[in-house]
């Protein structure tokens, strides 16, 4: 809402500067977002009358004007083509100041110009809000402007606009009068509201128009007045200036007056050309299926039975509260008008204007609810102005169709409740004073238990709590004390899942990985980039029905796209060695919508590594490859105390390298996968180096992790470490060998580490050599060489028997 400072001062006495009032309003809930001084620096520009105009003798594109400025006639050279003799124009005489420049005498092609004629733009005005004919060229002034007068007040440039940022509950402030009431309540300033001549029901008017509200659920009240002998013309300057300051473009006197009253009282009005209304009847009804109307903007609109229309006896003549029809538009030929002032159902107007993508100052006000009690008064106000300004002659009285006048009830207000909600200690008189400032009357009082009645323009005040907020607001939030809740002590804590997520993140960071956060929604093409075949479970996605772009098309079912894109983005910036992780959700439609009310959301830990740790002066390079990332995963499992972990080779993950990919099984459950990204997938993402990924479903882990740690005695007897080297066929996996060693070594075997994998010289083709270091230890004695030798022989025999292993000796 743009509030003209001059207009506001006519409605209420203000003893503050605009900036001071803005601060007071902002701190009491009607935020002033900005203060615009309409004069952007114009000084010394006056009204001139063009007496004569002729071409510049030396330049085709220039003209020379003889301009009277009252006490002198100036010779001014202009390049504008829209000026004619007899017009009044803004003249910047030598010494005048414009927002962009200072004006001096200047010579144009041999002729001295004593100043400059100005366009709206040069005067720092927002040309978009002016009528189209005033936007380009020199600004032509109205007849009534006195020659030689300062242009600043005439163009309303001496005004200041407060830009209000209104919250949805304060739609009442979409009215100058209500803003003035708010200012009066806040500052104690005296209100000076316009006096409006009220009309009543009249036979004269009823004879001219019949009004029938068919759908009373969507229209509570409809007032019609008829204005005859209409003379369409331009509005006077003061009216145009008010509208311009409010951001409304002046059109003609009738339309301008309806807009003025809307700005003044918050009640949108509409004027129909009376002669275009069939049977002089207004029917307020839902549109019939398939009904059409051409609206004022010239567009044909298809209507639905959801939409409320204003119809005459035959057809819709307007979409209620949203836009009038072209056919019944007020034109230069209009002789008689029907003026509409109505109350329409907010949600219905909202739905209709959304469906038609038509939002206006009027629909905005209807949506939020206008003041039901002054619907009739607003029509009278418009008629009063039309009569005053000679726009037409109002027929006496009105037709007020108000089938079920609204009953408004008092609200209970308990002083004790006020203080117990706010934590304040306000007394009766303080509260009473605030209520009075807000025009809230106390109807009944039983000690501190009151019943109060609110003014009709404050439709947001319905409950006791609404009044308590008003009291807090007017008393000042800064006067609320600062306390802490004094109830029972509570234990602050995270739950097991939150603790697990924290722990895992810390372990990842400790291993040198950087945490990333990527969007939960992805472009659906990622599923193709990951080579997921049709029907793949990860293709059962949750689809966003109204994305801003395809980038938010679907909710991710896998954490890979964000990680791959992050890698790509970093490589583009020459960050080639990367170790990243993300702990976030994936979203699986599994049965949604249908048997599930909501999709499934699963916590996932994803990690990606690519590139290498660069060689240093001391150590060689280290690849961030499959085995690096596998080690990261293994560390997570071991830190979480998960022992039963296996990596099982898998060839059917379409996004991963078929030879370098494994399922991760913990406690017999599949919890995720690890692998190198398939080269074709890398190609889709434009990544030109190998990358390894893993993904773990954390919800599967949580049941397996125990936070309780039981101490194990530190062994008292020394351990024996001995190497074991074997040769096995290439097809035998290290995991199988480790399995046999563990099974055979049983409890005395404390640790196995695989320290060498070798192929080549001295090893048969198709075989590989594996070298392990085994640590043996007993809890009750020192193991003898003989015992360990025997254990090794057993292991060797088992490996030979089960995996065809040879000893390499």
């Amino acid at each position, binding site marked *: 809402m743009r509030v003209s400072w001059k207009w506001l001062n006519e409605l209420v006495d203000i003893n503050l500067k605009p900036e001071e009032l803005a601060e007071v309003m*902002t*701190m*009491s*809930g009607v935020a002033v977002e900005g203060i615009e001084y309409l004069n952007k620096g114009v000084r010394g520009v006056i009204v001139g009358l063009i007496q004569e105009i002729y071409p510049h003798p030396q330049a085709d594109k220039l003209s020379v004007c003889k301009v009277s400025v009252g006490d002198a006639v100036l010779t001014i050279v202009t390049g504008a083509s829209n000026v004619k003799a007899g017009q009044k124009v803004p003249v910047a005489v030598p010494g005048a100041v414009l927002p962009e420049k200072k004006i001096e005498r200047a010579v144009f092609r041999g002729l001295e110009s004593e100043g400059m004629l100005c366009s709206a733009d040069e005067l720092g005005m927002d040309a978009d809000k002016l009528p189209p004919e005033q936007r380009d060229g020199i600004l032509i002034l109205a007849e009534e402007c006195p020659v030689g007068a300062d242009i600043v007040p005439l163009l309303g440039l001496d005004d200041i606009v407060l830009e209000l940022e209104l*919250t*949805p509950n304060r*739609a009442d402030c979409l009215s100058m009068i209500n803003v003035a009431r708010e200012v009066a309540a806040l500052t104690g300033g005296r209100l000076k509201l316009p006096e409006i001549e009220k009309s009543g029901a009249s036979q004269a008017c009823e004879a001219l128009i019949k009004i029938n509200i068919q759908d009373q659920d969507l229209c509570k009240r409809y007032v019609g007045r008829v204005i005859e002998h209409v003379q369409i013309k331009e509005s006077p300057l003061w009216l145009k200036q008010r509208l311009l300051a409010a951001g409304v473009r002046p059109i003609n006197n009738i339309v301008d007056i309806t807009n003025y009253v809307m700005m003044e009282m918050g009640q949108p009005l509409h004027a129909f050309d009376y002669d275009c209304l069939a049977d002089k009847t207004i029917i307020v009804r839902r549109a019939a299926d398939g009904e059409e109307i051409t609206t004022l903007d010239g567009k044909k609109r298809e209507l639905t039975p959801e939409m409320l229309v204003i119809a005459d006896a035959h057809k819709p003549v307007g979409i209620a509260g949203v836009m009038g029809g072209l056919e019944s538009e007020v034109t230069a030929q209009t002789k008689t008008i029907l003026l509409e002032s109505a109350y329409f159902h907010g*949600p219905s107007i*909202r*739905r209709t204007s959304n469906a038609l993508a038509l939002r206006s100052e009027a629909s905005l006000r209807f949506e939020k609810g206008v003041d039901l009690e002054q619907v009739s008064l607003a029509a009278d106000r418009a008629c009063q102005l039309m009569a005053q300004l000679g726009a037409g002659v109002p027929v006496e009285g009105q037709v007020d169709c108000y089938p079920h006048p609204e009953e408004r009830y008092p609200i209970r207000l308990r002083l004790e409740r006020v203080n117990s*909600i*706010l934590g304040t200690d306000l007394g009766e008189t303080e509260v009473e004073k605030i209520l009075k400032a807000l025009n809230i009357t106390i109807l009944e009082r039983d000690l501190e238990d009151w019943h109060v009645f609110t003014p009709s323009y404050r439709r947001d005040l319905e409950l006791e*709590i609404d009044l308590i*907020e008003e009291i*807090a*607001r007017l008393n000042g*939030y*800064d006067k*609320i*004390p*600062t*306390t*802490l*809740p004094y*109830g*029972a*002590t*509570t*234990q*602050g*804590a995270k739950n097991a899942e*939150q603790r697990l997520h924290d722990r895992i993140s810390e372990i*990842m960071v*400790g291993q*040198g990985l*950087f*945490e*990333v956060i990527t*969007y*939960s*929604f992805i472009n659906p093409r990622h599923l193709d980039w990951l080579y997921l075949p049709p029907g793949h479970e990860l293709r059962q996605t949750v689809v*966003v*029905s*109204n*994305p*801003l772009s395809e980038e938010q098309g679907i909710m991710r079912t896998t954490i890979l796209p964000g990680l791959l894109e992050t890698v790509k*983005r*970093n490589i583009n910036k020459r*960050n080639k060695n990367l*170790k990243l992780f993300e702990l976030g*959700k994936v*979203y699986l439609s599994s049965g949604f*919508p249908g048997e599930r*009310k909501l*999709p499934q*959301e699963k916590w996932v830990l994803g990690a990606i590594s690519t590139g290498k*740790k660069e060689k*240093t*002066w001391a*150590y060689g390079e280290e690849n961030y490859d499959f085995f690096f990332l596998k080690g990261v995963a293994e560390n997570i499992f071991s830190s979480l105390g998960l022992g039963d972990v296996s990596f099982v080779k898998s060839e059917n993950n379409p996004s991963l390298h078929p030879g370098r990919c494994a399922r991760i099984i913990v406690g017999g459950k599949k919890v995720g996968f690890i692998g190198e990204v398939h080269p074709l997938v890398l190609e889709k993402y434009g990544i030109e180096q190998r990358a390894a990924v893993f993904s773990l479903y954390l919800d599967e882990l949580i049941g397996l992790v125990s936070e309780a740690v039981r101490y194990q005695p530190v062994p008292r007897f020394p351990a024996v470490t001995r190497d074991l080297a074997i040769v096995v066929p290439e097809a035998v996996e290290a995991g199988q060998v480790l399995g046999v060693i563990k099974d055979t070594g049983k409890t005395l075997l404390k640790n196995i580490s695989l320290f060498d994998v070798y192929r080549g010289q001295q090893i048969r083709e198709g075989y590989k050599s594996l070298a392990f270091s085994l640590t043996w230890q007993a809890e009750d004695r020192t193991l003898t060489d003989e015992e360990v030798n025997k254990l090794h022989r057993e292991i060797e025999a088992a490996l030979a028997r089960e995996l065809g292993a040879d000893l390499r000796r």
Partner: protein
Amino acid sequence: MQEQLQLIKKQAEEDLQKCLTMDQLNEVRIKYLGKKGELTQVLRGMAQLPAEERPLIGQLANEIRDSLENSLSLYSEKIKVKELEKKLRAESIDVTLPGIAPDLGRRHPLHLVLQEIKNIFIGMGFTIEEGPEIELDYYNFEALNIPKDHPARDMQDSFYITPEVLLRTHTSPVQARTMEKTKPHVPVKIIVPGKVYRRDDDATHSPMFHQVEGLVIDKNIRFSDLKGTLLNFARQMFGPEQQIRLRPSFFPFTEPSAEVDISCVMCKGAGCRVCKQTGWLEILGSGMVHPRVLEMGGYDPEEVTGFAFGMGVERITMLKYGIDDMRHLFENDVRFLHQF
């Protein structure tokens, strides 16, 4: 004999002085004190001396041996120190060569700040609740006193999945879910961190961002308690000198409602570009839980009251670290991430 002994002593002292290593020292020891050493020889020759000379010579020989041994151990100490010094000198390194550090990762700055926020509220007795990001319209709007077609829905442009299911636009639906779960018990004292989604994408808005919601319901909760709790939070988060300022505002699910400003962390309230010269920065929205919301959640608003607040984690993160563009937070450039 006497002279011979004195000569040996003198020679031995000279030899010792020439010793530079333990080996040389050992040679000297053997030369004089070894089985065939010169002094040993002399002592062996004592038997041939006349009996009256023996005690004298014997005493002298022993004195010389003791003195020699003493010198030997002294020299040995000196040489040890010298040899160690030499060894240490040889082992000297260029201490300015870079260290070989194990890699260290980084938490994302948003999560660092989130962690800090959680810890502050845990310290005040709050537990942490979470809820679905894909949410029913009922919990996201209706249970929060935002019926269908209410103008307040304009405040939050939503991503819809179906007409009844959407990406939550705030963490507030967890208020409604928690009340439903906990009713009629009090106190409720939770914070709700999480991702939320709105149809906005520009330099100051991201379609996905993070919020922390807070909810307290108990007997006798007052607006002043909200003010005190938030002041405490602001001081823990931004420093003990922090001031807060409450401005009346509107949220459908709280009343009275307030926007909360903290004194500008950049200029300490003096006025700067970041705070648009006001000295204040808006960081959260808050208010007393609306009685209708309490009722819908299964509580009697005459029996209990509550307050709620919600803050944007991105905004707090940006203020805390002086980050000027929200997009940095989701681009995940490692040179950016490395700074936290």
